[in-house]
């Protein structure tokens, strides 16, 4: 299937004298992490399906600097940010969509003061708008009656108040959306934010992703949905730790929709 993926780069577009409607910011995880690459592909399939005029930066994309900033390295962050902004401004980018809440937050909130002003949307918001415009349709069937719980990524929810778009999408699948006891504003972190993804946790009684997985398991879900590649990794690890990987899947909202379409 993936042979059919149409993924133009900004450079190719420019060579043809074209300007896409939206830049798909893939992010490091979506580019390199084996699990997250599946999310990237699922999202591209949906973009292709809906005939969205988009492009990626490809090899011209670089880390947004989020993990550096949150680790305290403002120098490295700003160097990354300014380099990325230079590239994006040269391509006259207006609108950006990304499947990573960390890239989303940083480009949306922290790039403007450094000269990078764009309209930035999370892929769940973008997919929701495609559905609302009728450019994408969901044939429910496949997930009918399945219990799906949604884990709010901190940098999507609390940090930027995006709570409804992913939930609306899940409900369109005719699935039963079950909420964890801690959700939305009160959601619990997956344990990866603030550059924790890249280091061992400090000494404690338990890992945060296990605590969060326990929240999810309490809802007796068939699927744990996430909207962040890092949350996805942490919860997948949590499910493995609980030896539930046979019965419960951790999936990105984009994957759920692509799956429902048999893409």
């Amino acid at each position, binding site marked *: 299937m993936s042979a059919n993926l149409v993924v133009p780069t900004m450079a190719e577009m420019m060579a043809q004298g074209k300007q896409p409607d939206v830049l798909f910011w893939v992010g*490091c995880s979506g580019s390199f992490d084996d699990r997250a690459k599946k999310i990237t592909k699922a999202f591209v399939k949906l973009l292709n399906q809906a005939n969205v005029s988009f492009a990626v930066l490809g090899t011209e994309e670089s880390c947004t600097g989020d993990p550096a900033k*949150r680790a305290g390295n*403002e120098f490295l962050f700003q160097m990354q940010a300014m380099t990325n902004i230079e590239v994006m401004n040269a391509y006259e980018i207006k609108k950006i969509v990304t499947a990573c809440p960390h890239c989303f937050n940083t480009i949306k*909130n922290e790039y403007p003061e*450094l000269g990078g002003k764009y309209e930035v949307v999370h892929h769940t918001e973008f997919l929701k708008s495609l559905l609302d415009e009728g450019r994408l349709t969901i044939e429910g069937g496949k997930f009918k009656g399945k219990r799906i719980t949604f884990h709010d990524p901190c940098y999507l929810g609390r940090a930027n108040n995006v709570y409804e778009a992913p939930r609306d999408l899940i409900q369109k699948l005719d699935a039963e959306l079950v909420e964890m006891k801690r959700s939305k504003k009160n959601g*619990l*972190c997956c344990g990866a934010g603030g550059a924790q993804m890249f280091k061992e*946790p400090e000494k404690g*009684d338990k890992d*945060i992703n296990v605590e969060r997985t326990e929240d999810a398991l309490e809802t007796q879900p068939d699927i744990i949905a996430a909207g962040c590649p890092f949350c996805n990794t942490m919860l997948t690890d949590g499910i493995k730790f609980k030896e539930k990987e046979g019965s419960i899947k951790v999936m990105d909202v984009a994957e759920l929709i692509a799956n429902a379409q048999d893409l």
Partner: protein
Amino acid sequence: MSYLDNILFAVLLVLGGGYFAGNVKKLIRNIKLGQDVNRTDNPSERWKNMAMIALGQSKMVRRPVAGFLHILVYLGFIIINIEVLEIVIDGLFGTHRVFSFMGGFYSFLIASFEVLALLVIVAVVTFWMRRNVVRLKRFVHGDLNGWPRNDANYILYFETVLMCLFLFMNAADLHLQTLGAPGYESIGSSAFPISQNIAPMFNGMSESLVHLLEKGTWWLHIAGILVFLNYLYFSKHLHILLAFPNTYFANLKPQGQFDNLESVTNEVKLMMDPNADPFAAPAPDADAVHTKFGASDVQDLNWVQLLNAYTCTECGRCTSSCPANQTGKKLSPRKIMMDTRDRLEEVGRNIDSNKGVFVPDGKSLLNDYITPEELWACTSCNACVEECPVNISPLSIIMDMRRYLVMEQSAAPTELNAMMTNIENNGAPWQYNQMDRLNWKDEQ
């Protein structure tokens, strides 16, 4: 002779008010030790926040039981101030119940104060039980060992005693009214719905003794209020004043937006400018002040962060929602705020004892109060910021201290250094080649 009372009262009032004013001055000076930050934009949004969060208690009621009880105590405090005003006027001018000319409305006011006083006692007793009998997790937490735990209880005792004195005073007054004692015109027992049940205990006592008890409780009540006022500065109870400016000056930006360090921007721009001469000596700047990157001590934090520290009530909602704390790590956002205040107070005392200048004491907020282990456990998830009933941000202090550790001391954990090297060399936190970024497109 009769003026003695009034003079004594005036002296008490001036002493109590004066000592308090002195401490407020010190408080403002200490907060101003912080770096400047502009929090005057968007005043309408700021007033709205203050009205909703400090005045309207909108974030308190997210935990309904504590929220409801807190509103009782809060209303009691606000409304009883009308009574305090009357007490002050009576005390200064030797009048008795100077507002009683308002007739039925006055009776209604006094009656509502009494009901509130009783509700406050109920709420305070429940609060005490939550701390000392039920022992809620966030109240038995080690952060509170020592003074903070006593402080919390002292406040509850204080409030109970003040409310009891108020009710006893009214009961004695009512008894004297029924006796028709001179100077005690009858207001009617409808004004005393609670204290009329206490009044019978005075039956059989001599009028002069009841008179003495009435005066005694009156004096103890107002003296207690003045002592309590002056206790605030030394206590977590300071939040009853600072919650208002604190919510006004709180961050209005999205929680995920961390500030851009201007000083770094200038350096990075220079670094990335192809026309800049890499070997040029920096232009000598007479006004240049060495700015530290990040924060290692309270003076490096901004004044809003210091105001946050004084405002913190140590309720522990932040810590109880912190993912790191819940999973047994050392980080406690509440402790970050308490440490910041403790250190700021220490710096303030240092300045006081050294004729107005800070003499380095070989200590700092970092290491002596807050350890790197605590700082590195934070996931920057903003749960603590979301939870705080008065919009304090422990996260901003954690981030500023991480910045100091990384940019001034290069003291990040090894794995984070590896991550940062990868970003620097490969444009990704993992060791992959930037040229492979689009490989996913063709992978099966």
